[in-house]
């Protein structure tokens, strides 16, 4: 359950101030599939970084499962990102010169799992996203779609309740993008994971059952009609 009230983020660039978020209030319930839409510079990525506990708001309140995130220490935020949140980025953000399985093991390095458990879990999760047999490939030996699957496996491996995806299909062709979107659908429908998707493409946003439009740091439209996975 995500609740934000009057969220404001101000970046100061020398003399000028940029209000990336200008008083955003909304609620995302458990198990929702939400697309956050808007032109570049509309504040949608900033919003996602706030929700993902990567960045702190200038003012306003953010409750994640009833906990006020604003008052948490850096270490507690790291724990939240580790256990309850998974990230998928447009540029995949895999560690170079590091095999697929080691990339997937990365989040488990930081929660005290044994090497054996890590390996087992990473294997299973890679299989889940359809990458059996490619565990020991390096990112530069994988296609874009395969790299994004590795990234999804990495986001999933600690069984999060929330996945944030920032333009996950932005670097992929339409067909591969569709395949990636179907993985998100499956995660949302079969596992009940809340998916928050940032995109500016209408057909990608169509997979979500709720579309929130941003403009100049404000929510201008909250559309719950239609959409969903086919």
């Amino acid at each position: 359950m995500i609740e934000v009230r009057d969220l404001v983020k101000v970046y100061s660039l020398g003399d000028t101030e940029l209000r990336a978020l200008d008083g955003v209030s909304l609620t995302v319930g458990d198990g929702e599939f939400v697309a956050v839409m808007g032109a570049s510079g509309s504040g949608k990525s900033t919003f996602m970084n706030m929700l993902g506990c990567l960045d702190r708001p200038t003012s306003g309140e953010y409750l994640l499962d009833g906990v006020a995130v604003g008052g948490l220490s850096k270490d507690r935020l790291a724990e939240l990102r580790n256990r309850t949140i998974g990230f998928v980025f447009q540029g995949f953000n895999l560690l170079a010169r590091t095999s697929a399985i080691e990339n997937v093991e990365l989040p488990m390095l930081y929660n005290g799992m044994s090497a054996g458990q890590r390996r087992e879990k990473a294997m299973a999760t890679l299989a889940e996203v359809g990458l059996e047999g490619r565990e020991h490939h390096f990112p530069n030996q994988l296609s874009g779609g395969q790299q994004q699957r590795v990234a999804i496996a990495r986001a999933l491996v600690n069984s999060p309740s929330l996945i944030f995806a920032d333009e996950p299909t932005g670097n992929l062709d339409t067909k591969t993008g569709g395949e990636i979107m179907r993985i998100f659908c499956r995660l949302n429908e079969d596992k009940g994971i809340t998916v928050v998707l940032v995109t500016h493409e209408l057909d990608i946003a169509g997979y979500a059952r709720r579309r929130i439009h941003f403009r100049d740091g404000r929510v201008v439209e909250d559309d719950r009609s239609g959409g969903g996975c086919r």
Partner: protein
Amino acid sequence: MSGAIIFSGGGRAPLRPRNTEIVITMYILPTVRIALRALRVNKMRSGLTMLGIIIGVAAVITMLAVGEGARASLAKSVQSLGSNLVLILPGSSTSGGARLGSGNVDTLVIDDVVAMREDCSAVGGVAPIVRGSAQVVYADRNWNTSVLGTDEYFEVVRDWSVVEGRFLTRQDVDGRTKNCVLGTAVVKELFGSDDPVGRVIRIKNVPFTVVGVLAEKGQSPTGQDQDDTIVVAYTTAQTRLFGSTRLNAVMATARSSELLDKAVDQITELLRQRHKIPPGEDDDFSIRNLTEMLAMAEMQTKIMAILLGSVASVSLLVGGIGIMNIMLVSVTERTREIGIRMAVGAKGRDILLQFLIEAVVLSLIGGLIGIALGMGLSALIGRFSDFETQVSVLSVVLSFGFAAAVGIFFGYYPARKAAAMDPIVALRYE
């Protein structure tokens, strides 16, 4: 497959590991692997970075090896001299205003030796020394060696016994016999592996009977081969070989190391009295306390070690700065990686530890290479120079520890910098 080992119980759940095990297996080991990989990627850079540490550690090892070797050979020569030895040399007298160097005048006579034996309570043994070099011949072999004339006290004073036959006796001294005792080096030159006792050799064309062979003594502190010598009665040496009544030196021992200073005082007083030197005038002899000389030599070795040590520590310091520099570059280069790690849940201290371990791994590998290099260098020095070298376990442990300390000290700042990064800024870094 008779040699196969069968493991059982593969499905059993592991016992909960202890805390330190958790830290090592879950934290340190994977981090070390990550560090090694990062270092492998930039082999050239890693190698150059390590160079400072390698040189520093190699210098530490080599310097300690040379110092240790010098100390060991000094200790050996102290033992070879006999303990509490005092050397009395004639000379340093003033003759018409010109001070003569020691050993150039005949101020020491055998009566001085006899008086020392009788009157100096702190003195254990006293032996006169007449020295010269001579050509010696046995059958078709000949050899040039030093001939040492002394009496039966020499054996005690120098703590130097025979391994074969007998040493010289009072009868040899009183009778001016043509008996001699050989050092092992002379035996080797003249007799090879034959038994020399009872044979007759010619010293300066005078026939001498070999009555004994001295034990092997090795090098003196001044680097001479003490075994390359022939010992005869001083009376024989004076009359039959060198034709003079002078004594080149007198060797004496104190009864104990505590009595060393007292022995020197007693000898000085006795000799001044016997030589009728008025108060205020210089001695016509000089006394050298060999233990003191050795202490001085040891001091010089120590100064040398300190000098080399400072060079080594400067090198380690420079090496450390090199590591810091490269780690700072590495942190900047891998900002995105840091961002990714933070996004998936790495805390500040995880990142700190990772970069710290990387710096330490770098310095420790450098340390290991440096230790190997230092050992090789020490072996080469030991083989191809006059220095003896000895690599001690302590020096290896010490330099390895130093390398680790340098890694931690100079790796901390870059690691802190990495750990303090803002995840979102790091993630967006291009």
